[in-house]
């Protein structure tokens, strides 16, 4: 940690708490299960996604992918492609515009973004199997694809390093993991482990995963002159993409506009500033016409990275009573040198449980692969698989109910950060979930319940995801007719951002819902953080809160120019916003409507921009969402088939803005977790580095019938440190899921599977 960081952290600890958000008590729309605002557009096919814009004169780009993992393109034969019908240009390193190399996402200064810092088609080097080595531009999509298939490449192939198994011994400790230290030691965990009366020491493996959002990545780019660039992109962060494009094309940020009104799912996979975006903008520059580059599903698998493969060791030393004396969690993941992203699998362990001694450490092995990236709850999803499986193994050793064990290891303070928790009600989530799920009827003894050919088991695991907030901006415009528009560059990929923010804005302004609009998905709007890390909701809530406060203060100033105003002499602190105006909190009949204020001031509208403060609360407290995942699985004794029969997720994630959209988010996360546990896995050829199952036929996301009944409970306890007491909920749903299933499979069969996905053959 730098001296500066230490100073800021120390300052943050002594900073007094702000009062909890008063709206927590007086919310009206917030907390209601309202329909999502864009539902109608989506069911009619009217919601326009990136690939569906068609500027005049548009042409199409198709990439050509390398078939080796490492080396050089010795010769690129583009003649056949060039003479193919409809072809306008073939871009190769020879004629590619010179670009600045993208710089990797830097968490200390999060304005740009990129999953890889390789130069984009600037030279003949190949760094992964599937890298783009040329791009064909043609009048139609089909022509571009046909011509792309005619490009021939000869390579000087080097022996790439692609096999995880064969290169594990070359692991190194990264400099940092998302800005945090790669290793933390408290006490001597190994020593404690050796002397512990009860020990568990096991290795857990998980494969490469792919986001597989149903919308493949797409970009449309066009230029106005040499220095103005317009981009539609299926991105999770319009502003980050704008800033990164400005960096790569050496343009002023103001000259670039990135738009993403609707994004067909992202899950982390659309925040990497992948080559499709850059190549599309470069192609548009070259041909002087709008260009569309829509990746095929295979293209997504080739040039958009997913979740790294991982091997994690968790060792637990415990007393017979179930107190932890040692907690060791080390993780080995893969990242190429051009990505340097060690997936933070040990992060949950840093904050979850009380232990006498702790050791967490992360290692990476640099392979010649497509850049790995964030995928829904990066770190926490695979990290909880390891640590929550191990805890279950410990419960088995102790012959203790796993929920009872969670009670024994519940910490009073954050174990590594050594701060208070802003709001942690994990045990309450367990207890409510256990009652609802009828956990007490579970049999501690494995293989003790069956239903015909099916063995039945129950499992439980903790869900954990940090509550993150980034500073951001918002603009609020109040119209003379008393309606309002809230604007933020935010991205809506279906999480319900637009709906939740509208509910919030209506309550914050004291307006009926239909009088408020929320405008998003455009980098020209006030700055928002990325739709990732479950931070967007919290961040925009805070920004809107700050901006509405500014608006209210200005309105009060305007109003008080009128000597007869009912708000005469009032201070901002005395006011509440309700019933389309501002009123005295102490004297509910005294107030004035927004329409009246603007009318008297002779203003057609009032518009303010505001920004939220730096997230000091995140330094002062340990802030996270928690949950308890309960499941029932059935395992077929003959075939080893695993079916999830019943699910209950009991969550502690602050105030719930909208139970309907929240429930959907959490269930979606749980279902993705079921896929992670049972069917999903990207298979990499250990010699060529080629991803073998580059399609939805080969990469198995869960289908309708894989999905059991899923119940969701919320503690709904507000976090006093956040706007509305809310937390982001986009990612917590997937955490703990794989462990809960593995634990239930053990309970059903007596077989402990430590190697995801839990496929039939591992159980036979």
């Amino acid at each position, binding site marked *: 940690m730098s001296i500066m960081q230490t100073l800021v952290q120390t300052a943050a600890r002594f900073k007094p708490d702000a009062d909890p958000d008063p709206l927590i008590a007086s919310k009206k729309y917030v907390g209601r299960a309202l329909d999502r605002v864009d539902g109608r557009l989506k069911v009619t096919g009217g919601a326009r996604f990136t690939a569906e814009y068609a500027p005049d004169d548009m042409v199409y780009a198709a990439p050509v992918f390398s078939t080796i993992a490492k080396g050089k393109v010795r010769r690129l034969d583009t003649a056949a492609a060039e003479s193919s019908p409809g072809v306008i240009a073939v871009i190769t390193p020879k004629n590619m515009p010179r670009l600045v190399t993208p710089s990797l996402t830097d968490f200390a200064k999060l304005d740009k973004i990129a999953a890889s810092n390789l130069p984009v088609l600037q030279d003949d080097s190949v760094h992964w199997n599937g890298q783009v080595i040329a791009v064909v531009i043609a009048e139609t999509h089909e022509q571009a694809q046909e011509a792309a298939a005619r490009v021939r490449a000869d390579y000087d192939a080097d022996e790439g390093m692609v096999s995880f198994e064969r290169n594990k011994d070359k692991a190194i400790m990264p400099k940092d993991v998302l800005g945090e230290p790669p290793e933390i030691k408290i006490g001597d965990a190994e020593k404690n482990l050796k002397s512990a009366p009860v020990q568990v020491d096991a290795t857990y493996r998980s494969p490469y995963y792919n986001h597989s959002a149903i919308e493949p990545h797409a970009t449309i780019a066009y230029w106005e002159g040499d220095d103005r660039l317009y981009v539609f992109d299926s991105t999770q962060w319009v502003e980050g993409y704008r800033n990164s494009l400005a960096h790569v094309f050496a343009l002023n940020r103001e000259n670039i506009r990135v738009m993403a009104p609707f994004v067909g799912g992202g899950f982390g996979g659309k925040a990497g500033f992948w080559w499709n975006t850059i190549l599309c903008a470069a192609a548009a520059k070259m041909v002087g016409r709008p260009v569309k580059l829509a990746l095929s599903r295979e293209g997504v698998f080739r040039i958009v990275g997913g979740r790294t493969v991982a091997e994690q060791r968790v060792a637990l030393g415990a007393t017979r009573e179930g107190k932890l004396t040692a907690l060791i969690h080390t993780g080995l993941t893969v990242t190429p040198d051009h990505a340097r992203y060690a997936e933070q699998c040990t992060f949950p362990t840093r904050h979850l449980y009380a232990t006498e001694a702790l050791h967490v450490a992360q290692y990476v092995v640099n392979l010649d692969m497509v850049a790995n990236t964030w995928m829904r709850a990066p770190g926490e999803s695979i990290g909880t698989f390891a640590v929550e499986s191990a805890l279950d193994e410990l419960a088995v050793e102790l012959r203790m109910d796993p929920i009872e064990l969670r009670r024994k290891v519940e910490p009073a303070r954050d174990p590594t950060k050594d701060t208070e928790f802003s709001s942690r009600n994990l045990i309450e989530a367990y207890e409510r979930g256990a009652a609802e799920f009828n956990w007490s009827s579970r049999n501690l003894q494995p293989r003790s319940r069956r239903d015909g050919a099916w063995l039945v088991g129950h499992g439980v695991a903790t869900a954990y995801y940090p509550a993150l907030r980034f500073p951001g901006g918002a603009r609020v415009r109040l119209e003379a007719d008393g309606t309002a528009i809230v604007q933020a560059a935010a991205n809506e990929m279906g999480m319900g951002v637009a709906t939740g923010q509208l509910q919030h804005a209506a309550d914050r302004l004291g307006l009926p819902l239909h009088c408020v609009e929320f405008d998003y998905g455009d980098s020209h709007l006030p700055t928002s953080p990325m739709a990732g890390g479950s931070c967007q909701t919290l961040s925009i809530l805070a920004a809107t809160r700050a901006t509405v406060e500014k608006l209210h203060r200005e309105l009060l100033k305007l109003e008080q120019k009128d000597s007869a105003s009912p708000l005469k002499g009032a201070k901002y602190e005395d006011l509440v916003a309700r019933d389309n105006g501002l009123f005295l909190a102490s004297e509910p009949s005294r107030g004035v409507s927004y329409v009246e204020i603007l009318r008297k001031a002779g203003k057609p509208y009032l518009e303010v921009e505001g920004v939220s403060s730096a997230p000091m609360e995140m330094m002062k407290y340990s802030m996270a969402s928690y949950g308890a995942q309960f499941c029932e699985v059935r395992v077929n004794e003959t075939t080893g088939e695993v079916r999830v029969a019943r699910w209950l997720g009991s969550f502690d994630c602050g105030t719930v803005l909208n139970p309907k959209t929240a429930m959907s988010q959490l269930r979606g996360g749980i279902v993705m977790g079921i896929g992670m546990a049972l069917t999903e896995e990207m298979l990499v050829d250990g010699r060529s580095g080629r991803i073998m199952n580059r399609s939805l036929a080969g990469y198995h996301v869960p289908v*309708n019938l894989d999905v059991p009944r899923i119940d969701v409970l919320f503690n709904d306890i507000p976090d006093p440190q956040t706007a509305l007491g809310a937390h982001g909920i986009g990612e917590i749903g997937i955490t703990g899921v794989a462990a809960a299933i593995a634990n239930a499979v053990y309970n059903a069969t007596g077989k402990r599977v430590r190697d995801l996905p839990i496929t039939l053959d591992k159980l036979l």
Partner: protein
Amino acid sequence: MLYTCPNRPKCHVSRPLNAMPISISDPATLVFQLNGEAVSIPASCSPQTTLLDFLRARGLTGAKEGCAEGECGACTVVMVRDLDGRTVYRPVNSCLMFLPMAAGQEVYTVEALAASGSLHPVQQSMVDHGGSQCGYCTPGFVMSLFAEHYRPGRGDGACDPHSMGGNLCRCTGYRPIRDAALALTAAPPDAFSRRLDAPAPPITAIASAHFSRPATLDDCLAILARDPDARIVSGGTDLGVESNLLGRAFPHLVSVEAIPDLRIFHETAREIEIGAALTLSEIEAAWKTAPAAFTEWLDLFASPLIRNRATLGGNLATASPIGDGAPFLLALDAAVRIAGASGTRTVPLHEFFLDYRKTALARAEILVSIVIPKPVPPIVFYKVAKRRLDDISTIAAAFSITLGAASRVTAARLAYGGVAPVPLRCIQAEDILTGSTWNRRAVQQACAAIAATLRPISDHRGSAEYRLALAQSLLEKFFYECSEAAE
């Protein structure tokens, strides 16, 4: 200043489709009804253009591409088809339909549903139940549900969520979508309902250089004999994937959809004859006496969307070692009728598969029908796949054991897919069982024979050992299920 958005361009789509024209003798035949309006398929359009690309190029972007291989259902549209004498809406994957296959047909996309301005009940239910998140999958689900909503004989209760088995959603976890289906009641007596009172459009003949749809078997055989480049297409669910994903060029596609001989379903006292070009859904509707195992088999085959196009003939002709049709039919002792220039012959199915993806079909021959002898013996079908539904088998097995007096096996058929380069029967194990008493010992001996003769491969769906173990344990499972049933 309030920010306005002048530069978000409106969509005015005018995307030209690709070359290699259909160049048809009578362009009038290449017209189809799209959302109630006649549209013509441009003669300049490649016959390998998909219906999906055509729709999207026209600005009908409700149908979306998520995979281009029939997996995700984002591209779902409905066709008006005849099903066993009734007019129905059939949802299909528009990404796997070659555009000329739509000629003369009637297609609806999601854009047609709320054309009047108010949401269709199916759409309303999706909105009410929060059936979309990102919304990319939503139009596809809506169209599957739309077809289910109007399914004749459905009654006025809830819609069956299984009808959306061919649609993937990565966001919602499916529950709200299922709730939307379950909340629907009777279909309204609207124009969509009334449409079903009239017959479905007939499947008409087309003749052109690059796409033909002959109306008789003789015409078809003549085309095949004449043009060495001609390639039969039936439902196109295999060929469409080859075209989209592998970039295969088919200079001349010959659709067998309009040939009556390939669309029969005959049941006599001696046999059941199923036309090679009947879709699986059509077989389901026509085969009223089908054994329960057929329904189980069908439910495990791909997805409802694929089953609305996929044919049994295509399934056998494509000769995938992991295809599901072969094991089932092998256990039923089925044969195939093949027509060629020199006449028609019948080949027992176990002699039809020669080698990996190689069948007894000679060039310019055509698979006409599949014949199942009667009485149909008792049969069970097992499919083991990584994912419960809509997945290719790791291994598939179909067993038929006929017992005589004193539990003596009079006939045994043990058929497998996924254990060899071709689907096959394990004759050695059958021979062991035939004549023995149906007991544990006989089953163990049969298993030993299975282990000694089958030579499965290892791939990402399962290792050879796992497959071999499964091939045996499925037989054991079958035996235990039989004993349990007997008790």
